[in-house]
């Protein structure tokens, strides 16, 4: 048996004992740390440290290659290849000198850079950096020890670089901060999910914290890990003695914590910063007093985003369906025009509406699907932290999107066709995905639940041949239109039940098809959803903006005893009471419409004042007997005026003012649909921009929201906008005013330049200036017409300007 196979055999069967800190040992011998040439120039020192760990019982020699890669060594006199070769030679020499039976693990560490979009390193560049290390080391080591990574995305690049280029075992060690998360926000459960699904051989944590601080993280990892787990804490927290950094925990205390962790179920141990051979020796002695108690936990179906981990288990999880161009002309247009930001905003709104996973599909004709899907995934993951469901029938698009995806994706989908499974399963396997299996094969969608169930079983069987365990499969029993194939709606439900009970797998359904062609589609949809959930449906793919459907899930979770204490239900529906009350009033007083509208007007007023968006929108929809413009002037504006007065008098703070403004804008949007298009009631437009050199746009955005709530049309040019661009916009939009914002004294000069350009070009429209460094004096000095001290003042100025124009 070769050494790497022996290592795999040991992992999880008995304790694997790693080595300890290297830097602290160098420091102890008076040798400078962080010297890339140490392996070459002072091999004796390196070998001496390896020997010390081997002699005290370490079974692993990790090569002295921390921080060795092309990024760290840029400009160095040593090449990566030289350093790696010397480091491996030193490790081998130490084993020869001590005659110990130890494994040589290549120590692979972070590049020190953050990957895009958090930093400036491309995923592919990170991959190539790690691949180079693998290529230089793979023939001379027994395995790879990935350690001290604080970014899970970078770990993915490192793991792929190893697994795609050799067959050696991998131990992957994450580093956690004192808040219990990795630097980039991944939780312990997220880390376990990612590392296990990517197929490493052993999980590990190291560095950053001492053993005491690591205990809760170890506990969380052991509560879900199926793979064996190794721990390498620091010797406590770093302290500074005036000359050097030192660590406070001595070997005996350190070992006592390792003993606790052994009882919790760890399968290996070692040390990191500040630990010495004495620490490792003490741990080995401590281990004799404890039983090896590693036991794998049950498999679970989990997918992860950049910071969120979702388990498809007991709870019903809403997967938002709106990032799919089918039947959505606006999204089709946005995709065709490359306006990915608009699509991201739609994603954010779905999450705010309660979606826990988002389906992402860009399938429109004549589009470069692999490129656009990849671009959109990158863009979404800049701002969205929930797991994504990558939805494509193009295996190339799936492969590229899954590769750059930061997390464990849900892959939509395979079906019972052999060629589809053969092309998609390798992608799922390689990137650790969870895959949706559709109950359709070469013969189409079978009419009966039994036949669909057979396809589900064949998908599971075929997946296993590709090394994908069944818990990484979710079955879609497929929803057909009840109006056309009425008998089959219940077959779908039966199949959901069979997959749940007999295969124990998670299930998904795309809901909205079922009601197509029938009146009152929402009623059919939510009834079908309730039936499906009772049969075991866990991942409905649906429109999260449909409050009735979302409410059905919430209610089911309460009645099915999944939502403990009905806490989610209460949180999501605490405002519904007023809605029901207002509806009841409407129903009970149908004989008196004026009374009905009067009640609604009162509810609307309160909802705007309190910033209750849903209630306000639902209420205004009921106010059918009041002319839209009367709703605006008699109810909406007075509510906003009250909020404005409360803000001016200090009763409420700015976010509350804005919540009311946002609510009023939504109400206004509803009313706009009913306002006679011939009615020229447009107020504006007003152009807003944060001037050149200034990237702070929060103040400008506040003004925008409040202006919009008062019915002004706003053209928002964004931040860091050049004078010439503002002039071009003025020519294009013919606004009634221009609003300029600046936060820094250094950028006020650009504000003055902008005003000068407009005036030199003969533009006479008023310019309103605002921002933290502005005052009436500064406004006067730079040629502004009005100083908007805050959002409410800007509204008053805008009303003044508008009224002057109106009178003219």
């Amino acid at each position, binding site marked *: 048996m070769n050494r790497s196979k022996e290592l795999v055999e040991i992992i999880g069967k008995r304790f694997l004992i790693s080595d300890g800190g290297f830097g602290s040992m160098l420091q102890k011998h008076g040798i400078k740390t962080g010297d890339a040439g140490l392996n070459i120039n002072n091999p004796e020192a390196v070998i001496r440290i390896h020997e010390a760990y081997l002699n005290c019982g370490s079974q692993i020699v990790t090569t002295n290659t921390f921080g060795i890669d092309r990024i760290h060594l840029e400009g160095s006199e040593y090449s990566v290849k030289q350093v790696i070769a010397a480091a491996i030679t030193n490790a081998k020499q130490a084993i020869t000198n001590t005659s110990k039976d130890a494994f040589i693990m290549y120590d692979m560490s972070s590049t*020190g850079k*953050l990957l895009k*979009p*958090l*930093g400036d390193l491309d995923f592919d560049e990170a991959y190539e950096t790690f691949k180079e290390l693998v290529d230089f080391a793979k023939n001379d080591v027994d395995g790879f020890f990935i350690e001290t990574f604080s970014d899970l995305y970078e770990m993915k690049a490192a793991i792929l670089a190893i697994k795609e280029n050799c067959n050696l075992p991998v131990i992957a060690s994450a580093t956690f*901060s004192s*808040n219990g998360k990795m*630097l*980039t*926000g991944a939780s312990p459960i997220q880390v376990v999910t990612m590392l296990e699904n990517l197929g490493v051989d052993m999980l590990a944590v190291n560095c950053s914290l001492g053993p005491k601080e690591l205990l809760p993280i170890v506990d969380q990892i052991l509560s879900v890990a199926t793979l064996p787990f190794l721990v390498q804490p620091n010797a406590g927290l770093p302290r*500074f*003695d*005036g000359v050097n950094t030192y660590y406070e925990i001595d070997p005996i205390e350190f070992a006592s914590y390792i003993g606790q962790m052994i009882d919790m179920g760890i399968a290996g141990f070692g040390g990191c910063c500040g630990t010495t051979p004495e620490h490792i020796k003490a741990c080995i002695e401590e281990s004799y007093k404890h039983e090896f108690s590693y036991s794998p936990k049950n498999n679970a179906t989990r997918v992860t985003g950049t*910071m969120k981990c979702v388990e498809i288990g007991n709870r019903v999880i809403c997967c938002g369906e709106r990032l799919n161009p089918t039947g959505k002309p606006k999204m089709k247009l946005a995709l065709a025009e490359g306006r990915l930001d608009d699509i991201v*905003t739609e994603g*954010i*709104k779905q999450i*705010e509406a309660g979606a826990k996973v988002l389906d992402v599909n860009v399938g429109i004709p004549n589009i470069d699907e692999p490129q656009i899907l990849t671009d959109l995934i990158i863009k979404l993951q*800049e*701002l*969205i*932290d929930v797991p994504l469901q990558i939805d494509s029938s193009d295996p190339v698009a799936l492969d590229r999107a899954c590769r750059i995806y930061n997390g464990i994706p849900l892959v939509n989908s395979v079906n019972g066709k052999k060629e589809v499974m053969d092309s998609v399963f390798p992608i799922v396997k390689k990137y650790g995905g969870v895959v949706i299996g559709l109950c359709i094969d070469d013969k189409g969608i079978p009419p009966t639940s039994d036949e669909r169930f057979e396809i589900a079983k064949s998908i599971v069987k075929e997946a296993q041949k590709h090394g994908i365990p069944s818990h990484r499969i979710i079955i879609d029993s497929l929803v057909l239109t009840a109006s056309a194939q009425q008998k089959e709606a219940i077959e779908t439900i039966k199949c959901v039940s069979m997959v749940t009970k007999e295969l124990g797998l998670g299930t998904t359904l795309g809901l909205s098809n079922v009601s197509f062609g029938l009146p009152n589609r929402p009623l059919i949809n939510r009834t079908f959803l309730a039936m499906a959930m009772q049969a075991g449906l866990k991942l409905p793919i649906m429109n999260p903006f449909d409050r009735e459907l979302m409410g059905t899930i919430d209610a089911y979770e309460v009645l099915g005893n999944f939502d403990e204490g009905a806490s989610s239900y209460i949180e999501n529906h605490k405002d519904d009471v007023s809605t029901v009350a207002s509806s009841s009033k409407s129903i009970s007083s149908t004989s008196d419409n004026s009374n009905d509208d009067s009640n609604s007007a009162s509810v609307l007023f309160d909802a705007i004042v309190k*910033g209750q968006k849903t209630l306000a929108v639902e209420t205004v929809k009921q106010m059918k007997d009041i002319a839209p413009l009367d709703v605006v002037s008699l109810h909406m504006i007075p509510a906003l005026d009250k909020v404005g007065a409360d803000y001016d008098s*200090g*009763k*409420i*703070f*700015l*976010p*509350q003012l*804005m*919540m009311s*403004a*946002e609510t009023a804008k939504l109400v206004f949007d509803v009313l706009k649909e009913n306002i006679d298009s011939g009615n020229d009631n447009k107020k504006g437009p007003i152009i807003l921009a944060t001037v050149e*050199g200034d*990237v*702070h*746009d*929060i103040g400008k*955005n*506040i003004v*925008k*929201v409040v202006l919009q709530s008062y019915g002004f049309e706003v053209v928002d040019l964004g931040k860091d906008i050049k004078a010439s661009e503002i002039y071009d916009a003025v020519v294009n939009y013919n606004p009634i005013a221009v609003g300029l914002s600046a936060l*820094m004294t*250094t*950028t006020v000069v650009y504000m003055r330049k902008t005003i000068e350009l407009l005036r030199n070009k003969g533009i006479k429209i008023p310019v309103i200036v605002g921002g933290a460094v502005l005052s009436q004096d500064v406004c006067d000095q730079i040629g502004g017409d009005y100083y908007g001290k805050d959002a409410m003042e800007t509204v008053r100025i805008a009303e003044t300007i508008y009224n002057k124009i109106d009178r003219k």
Partner: protein
Amino acid sequence: MIIDVEGLMGQRALKYLRYTEKPSKEQLELLFSSFSEIQEVEMIESAHKYFQLELCDGKYALKDSQINIDYPPIQNMLGKKKSDSVCIFLSTLGIGVDRRIESYKDSNPSRMVLLDACASSYIESVTDEYQRSLGLGDETFRYAPGYGKVPLIMQKEIFESISEFRKLHVELDENCIMHPFKSMTGLVGFRSKEGRI
């Protein structure tokens, strides 16, 4: 970090919102949920460096450093407390907080404003805690480039001179603004105890 909406953390957020009244229960709940959301996405990193002070022509200067501290507020502060050392430190909440704030720009601007104010307060609390963890109490006022009459350009000198800061994933732009935005540098003077320097 413990979220204390009724303590300094909440008071600072209210200050950033320019709110001077006693907050209502509803307002405190809004602050709490915002601080909690920041905790979900923060990626706190901190680093520091100690400097010895020397007197050159009657003015304080950092020994073996190119960082210019010849600004009246800093000179007065160090002189008043008879400091012989200075610690300069940097803390950041990380890019995740900036991105979360940005994500609300179109969909929920009021949330954006709340988070922005709370994040500004949060980074101050993080910096306070880091300062305490270094054993530095309130020896002197904590100055930062851009504060009072200390020019922002000092930020550039700090970043160029302190290599420890370059590892923290914080960048300076041409206007000396730090990215991520919710980052904070601080300069504190102190009298060295035995062994500290």
